[in-house]
């Protein structure tokens, strides 16, 4: 299996797991009829107050472990956001293996930008 296959499978796996979690979250929400303090109608609204700003990594893990439908949906979304990150990491590995140093550096810069947006910026902004 070469790198391109590995990349293709990783992306596919990420997308499938993500879609499955999103759907499971939806089903759980339909069965339970609520998530945390919010009723189903408060969640499934065009102008809902339930959004990502209330879900940090901590609440997400706790929520998932207690089968909170919204936390599971958010986990699916997190995995979806992670797929391009994995793509970039595999890209770095590929260019190192090919000893293509210019593109190793380029891909590292792209990776830094991603990490900056995902982990560093939130702590700078104190949100």
């Amino acid at each position, binding site marked *: 299996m070469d790198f391109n296959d590995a990349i293709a499978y990783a992306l*596919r796996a990420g997308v499938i797991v993500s*879609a499955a979690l999103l759907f499971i979250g939806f089903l759980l929400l339909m069965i339970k009829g609520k998530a945390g303090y919010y009723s189903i109608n408060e*969640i499934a609204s065009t*102008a809902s107050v339930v959004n*990502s700003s209330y879900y940090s990594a901590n609440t997400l893990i706790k929520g998932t472990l207690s089968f909170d439908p*919204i936390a599971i949906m958010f986990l699916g979304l997190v995995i979806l956001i*992670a797929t*391009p990150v994995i793509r970039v990491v595999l890209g770095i590995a590929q260019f190192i293996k090919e000893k293509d140093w210019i*593109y190793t550096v380029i891909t590292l810069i792209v990776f830094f*930008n991603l990490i900056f947006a995902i982990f560093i910026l939130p702590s700078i902004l104190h949100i």
Partner: protein
Amino acid sequence: MIKNRIKIFQFNNKSLILEKIYISTPKKKGVIQPILYFLMLILVSAISGILGALVGLGGGTFLVPIYTLYLRIPIAYATGASLISTIATSSGAASAYIKDKITNVKLGMGLEIATTSGSIVGALTVALIYSHHLQYIIYIVFGLVLLSQVYIQLTRSKYELPKEMKPDWSTKLFKLYGSYYDVVLGKEVNYYGVRWWLGEIIMFFAGFISGLLGIGSGALKVLGMDWAMNLPMKVSTTTSNFMIGITAATGSSIYWIYGYIQPFIAAGTAIGVLIGAFIGTKILVRITNRSIRYIFSAILIFLGIQMVLRGLGYGF
């Protein structure tokens, strides 16, 4: 039961289209409405996903106008769902394209330096705009971006392949060579890119627009590659599709902390766009470049005008 009904109606009375559907549906349980709403999100985003995959966009270009204009979803949630779904299109389609060997990964990765930087600036800018309740700016900018893409599409529609240009220093340094088999032309096409620096500048702007409007900004990426870097349309379209996922992931994390991602809307959208992108990639090889552009342009004009009008406070 009656109490339930009233609650349901109060809840979604903002949406005219949704209302029509609910009226024709027996409302026995509280879950029927959310299910219908979810199915509608999936349907609308699947259609947007098909259109998006056909033209190398994330689907958001069509999704955000339809969500805000017809489903009355607040623009912050619409762009949040759209940005996330862009990743679904990109990652979903990427595996198929890599096998086709049309996507140029080096070209895409090199340009990602600019798009990810642009996306960070764009997402922070939109956070500033929303925090001052200046949503109308986003409607107008969105409409103008849609309309400007029409011009780009139509002026380039004469050529299947770019004109010959001499390789420059960046062609060698960044190894911008490649080849692919073109099904429509029925031959192996060898190509090379030029003016890498100009591509980077346009890509920063593309990333900015992506972060600002929650779209993949694929049309600008295509412009950067086929106009600035003189690459064939097929290469720029597929490479753009590869790039939009990485750009969108950068912007999404900023959207996340500001709370522009509504789980129910984003979940339905991501699933729908995935289904749409899957169907779209199957059709892609069968349509010539020119016909893609004409269909695309007509829809863009329609939605673009409506978005500008909405921003200016007229109707819709």
